[in-house]
């Protein structure tokens, strides 16, 4: 019941936690990159936190309501207007049939999330409605939304005027410099002491050659320990080569000398080492950063990363609404 007038930039339907359980079929999880903002949008409109919503990147869509509905926008500020009147983010809003929601470029942050009471009701594919663009599956016929499509929405009862408490919202940087958590491993022992210190002391620049599969980083050269050179031939010839293994979500995958953070639509295996891993509690920062911005990595333990993920999940709940 939402008609697409302008699709925006590869706007896609996502749900959380996405298409889990099918890595063996080659399907990554997909889902929203900033799952903190995404879940709060759903909570605002009375949906389950993981219900299907829209991920808008850099340039938002223009959508027309074909029936009355309650929606909410969170994440990046895309200067949304409903029939020409600015509408606030982080708040549930009632739209009437025939009204048009217009979003433009992301002013602060990179990805905005639109949830609508009832949730999007596109076809469930292998347990999820999330779009996996490269695989051409999930979402709307496997792809980003297109002009002229009507996005199906399930019946739902939303209440307008609900707001997310400021203390429960993620805070996006405005100086282009992000501090991003990392956990060491699985292959940190392939990087020498100088290389590890260099990794943690560098402001890595996010390359424009990035997408929902990988975030490419620009920075200094890497140096390795003895085991990167003195290894059986099946590991391959480059110091960063290792016998093929699984890649965890968030792995900082070292492709020769180029680190690539493996994000939501990631390749799940290959023959490069993964010296560090960005835990899911930091993914909202990846989702809200733009090419040219920098990441300063801050190492923490797996236990602390898990505690932070639990803290965020606890915030994506009714107790955060005022």
């Amino acid at each position, binding site marked *: 019941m939402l008609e697409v007038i302008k699709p925006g*930039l*590869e706007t896609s339907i996502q749900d959380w936690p996405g298409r889990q359980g099918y890595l063996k079929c080659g399907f990554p999880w997909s889902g929203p990159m900033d799952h903190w903002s995404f879940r709060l949008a759903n909570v605002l409109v009375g949906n389950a936190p993981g219900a299907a919503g829209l991920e808008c*990147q*850099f*340039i938002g869509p223009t959508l027309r309501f074909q029936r009355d509905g309650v929606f909410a926008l969170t994440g990046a500020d895309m200067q949304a207007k409903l029939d020409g009147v600015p509408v606030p983010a982080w708040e549930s809003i009632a739209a009437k049939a025939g009204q048009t929601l217009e979003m*433009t*470029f*992301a*002013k602060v942050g*990179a990805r905005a999330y639109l949830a609508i009471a009832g949730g999007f009701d596109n076809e469930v594919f292998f347990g999820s409605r999330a779009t996996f663009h490269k695989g051409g599956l999930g979402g709307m016929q496997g792809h980003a939304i297109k002009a002229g499509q009507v996005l199906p929405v399930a019946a739902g009862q939303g209440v307008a005027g609900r707001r997310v408490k400021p203390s429960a919202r993620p805070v996006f940087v405005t100086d282009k410099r992000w501090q991003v958590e990392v956990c060491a491993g699985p292959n940190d022992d392939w990087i020498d002491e100088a290389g590890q210190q260099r990794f943690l002391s560098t402001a890595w620049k996010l390359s*424009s*050659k*990035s*997408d929902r599969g990988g975030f490419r980083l620009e920075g200094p050269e890497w140096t390795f320990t003895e085991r990167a050179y003195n290894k059986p031939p099946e590991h391959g010839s480059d110091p960063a080569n290792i016998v093929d293994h699984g890649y965890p979500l968030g792995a900082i995958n070292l492709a020769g000398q180029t680190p690539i953070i493996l994000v939501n639509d990631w390749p799940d295996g290959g023959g490069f080492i993964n010296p560090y891993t960005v835990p899911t509690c930091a993914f909202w920062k990846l989702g809200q950063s*733009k*090419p*040219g911005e920098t990441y300063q990595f801050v190492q923490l333990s797996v236990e602390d990363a898990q505690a932070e993920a639990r803290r965020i999940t606890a915030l994506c709940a009714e107790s955060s609404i005022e």
Partner: protein
Amino acid sequence: MAHEVELQTAGNMWKVLVKPGDAVKAGDTLFIMEVMKMEVPHEAPADGVVAAVNISEGEEGLDAGFVAVVID
């Protein structure tokens, strides 16, 4: 009346298709940005003559809202 064409997104300048003095029609593509492996064409909002081009191919780290082209 002059029309200012602003960058619709942060990103890099991939192709610039016009130069000052060029006559353009509404809907003509003026330049194409590249962000996260996606192309973002920017079109002329009206017929006119290109008065200024404030961007060049290969520029990186541009911000949304920057006035890239002016059409008189």
